[in-house]
């Protein structure tokens, strides 16, 4: 699945102007153009061009206060945009918001319910606002989220994890083709996180689109096909995870004798221009530039052997989503 939308992506700056309203046949589940939202002097969402392919699991990542939730609120019509256009499932929002949201399920911030009602009663209340068929889905969605046994308990007695699952159940009432989940793993124990991951993956397997906003980058990497990184209201990167990480620096771990001399050898051989080596006992850690690194790794090996260094092990480590995220959001010094 990963990378299957690679061809559809371009860097935001390369995106062509919005197509005509044709958009109903769009391949994007979510499409925004120049979306902007200001709160007095603060621009929470700044000229955002977001493209979420249909049928994908899409991670929407950013540090706290980056404008993730504000963008979700804009998409769902919970607040109004100051500029730009957007569409959900091909329907322009807010003009055809009711048609779009008919097939959208969403959790924003945290799922909140009437505490005096049971889980089932809360779902009944929400399904009443949807189409008549939503009422018939209450049983199946409770079953799917593993909430059937506790459905008739009051929400006041639910744990955070149970409320999260009930929130997903509420989303599924729409039989949605697009789910927007804001931090769905919050408050879940490891088993709960695994269960939520299974639910999300099964929804994507059914052809639904899931947009996942989360701080748990490891979970996003395991769950999503593509991501967008938002920083200070602006999307700074978006695309399939595999492609984005392919463009990230690669760390080469070298276990060898005489690490200090090995570093000097590499520096004198002129490798310092394209890679940086730091001692990491019992060897070195060399950060290689992005791109195909096979030849560079072989070159490192040759230099060290020629210099009389015993090389015990060479290991190329691809950057994780977390380290890449920290790098591109400036939370981590560029190791190059």
């Amino acid at each position, binding site marked *: 699945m990963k990378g299957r939308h690679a061809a559809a992506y371009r860097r935001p700056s390369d995106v062509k102007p919005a197509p005509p309203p044709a958009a109903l046949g769009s391949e994007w589940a979510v499409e925004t153009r120049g979306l902007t939202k200001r709160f007095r002097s603060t621009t929470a969402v700044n000229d955002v061009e977001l493209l979420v392919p249909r049928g994908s699991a899409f991670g929407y990542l950013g540090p706290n206060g980056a404008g993730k939730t504000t963008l979700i609120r804009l998409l769902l019509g919970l607040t109004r945009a100051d500029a730009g256009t957007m569409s959900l499932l091909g329907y322009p929002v807010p003009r055809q918001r009711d048609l779009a949201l008919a097939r959208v399920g969403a959790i924003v*911030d945290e799922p909140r319910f009437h505490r005096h009602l049971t889980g089932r009663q*809360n779902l009944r209340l929400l399904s009443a606002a949807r189409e008549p068929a939503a009422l018939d889905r209450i049983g199946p*969605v409770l079953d799917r989220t593993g909430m059937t046994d506790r459905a008739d308990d009051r929400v006041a007695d639910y744990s955070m994890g149970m409320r999260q699952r009930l929130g997903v159940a509420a989303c599924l009432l729409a039989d949605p083709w697009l789910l927007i989940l804001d931090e769905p793993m919050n408050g879940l124990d490891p088993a709960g996180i695994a269960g939520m991951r299974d639910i999300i993956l099964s929804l994507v397997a059914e052809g639904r689109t899931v947009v996942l906003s989360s701080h748990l980058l490891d979970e996003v990497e395991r769950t999503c096909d593509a991501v967008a990184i938002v920083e200070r209201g602006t999307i700074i990167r978006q695309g399939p995870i595999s492609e984005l990480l392919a463009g990230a620096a690669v760390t080469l771990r070298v276990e060898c004798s005489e690490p200090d001399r090995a570093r000097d050898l590499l520096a004198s051989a002129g490798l310092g221009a394209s890679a940086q080596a730091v001692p990491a006992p019992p060897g070195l850690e060399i950060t290689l530039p992005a791109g195909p690194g096979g030849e560079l790794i072989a070159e490192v090996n040759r230099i060290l052997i020629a210099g009389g260094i015993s090389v015990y092990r060479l290991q190329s480590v691809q950057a994780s989503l977390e380290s890449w995220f920290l790098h591109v959001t400036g939370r981590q010094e560029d190791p190059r």
Partner: protein
Amino acid sequence: MTSVPVHSAPPPGQAVPAAPAGQPRDRRGSPLPTGAMISATLMELRRRRGLMVALVLMAIGLPGLFEGIRLLLHAFAPRTNPPAGGDMIFAVLVAGFLPTFAFIAAATAGCTAGSRDLTEGVFRHLVITGRSRLALYLARIPAGLAIVGTVVAIGYALVCAVSIFAAPSFVDDSNANVPPGLSEAGFEHWAATRARTVICDLPYSGRVPPDVACPAGPISSLTPAQTAPPALDALAVRIARQDYSGYRGIFLRPPATLMLTAGIWIELEAAVGFVLGLGLASLLGQRTGPVILLIMSQLILDPILIAAKIPALEPVRRWFFGLALARLEPAALPMARGLPGVSGGIGGPGSGQSLLPESPALAACVIAAWLTAWTILGAWRMMTRDA
């Protein structure tokens, strides 16, 4: 785990229909709420234990307690405690307590309905369904009125039942043993046949001949022997004539038409309280403040405006909903805005209408304007509020 039926999610490049194939498109953009929405909102409100306890307490419990105490007192000490029912007690309760408590109870329910979705974070979930916010707002009105109207109707039915079934069947005060249901002529005839009893035991504001002595002792010791019997009979008839209106009031059961019109009026009070509370709470996004404001308007502002004869306040009097509601009170009831004893409290039947500036038609228009304005304000805020 079972899976939710998937209606063949369309592949990229194909439009997503708003409803699965074979199902009618739901008109969720319509401003009109569906029956399911109203029913679900009713369920949500009905299951608020605190709200329901407050409603039942105010609309049923307090009049029930009042009537219950009177029934018990009369049962245990009938000579010193009059019966719990009858026309006069009905008038006191219906003109004084019931509308006040019905309004406050309904306003509390309205404020709850108008604010709780917001404060409990469910409003956002409802908006995400794509349903028209106006429909979400309007669904609360019939749902809330169904609850408030039912509770108020039960409390009112209780008062009516006690007023009818516990109305006095005879008066044995001072051993007069007056039978019920006599016409004026019948009452005079009855008095003429019991001149000594009537002269000595029924109230009379005229002059009693000095030679008629009515000792405080038992009637058997009465010695009106000096006065000729025809003169005593005539005096008894005069006393009966003077007391007839009081006699009729004591024994009368409230007329069916009065009970019907008073019931409608009390339900109107409750409906106005609910709709105003709903609009105000939706506008302000909270419950406590609006509840306090509406209670103050009912208990403080209304009586002040009714009693005030300040020319500068005349426009306020003319356009204030509380006075308009008072204007529509059935004329057979004594006017009472606020609790008895508060300024403008219970007076004679129809006494209040003369204090109020509007005609009934204008009063109805004023009420309609208030309901419309607050519904528009509440709905507008709900439609424009960030969820």
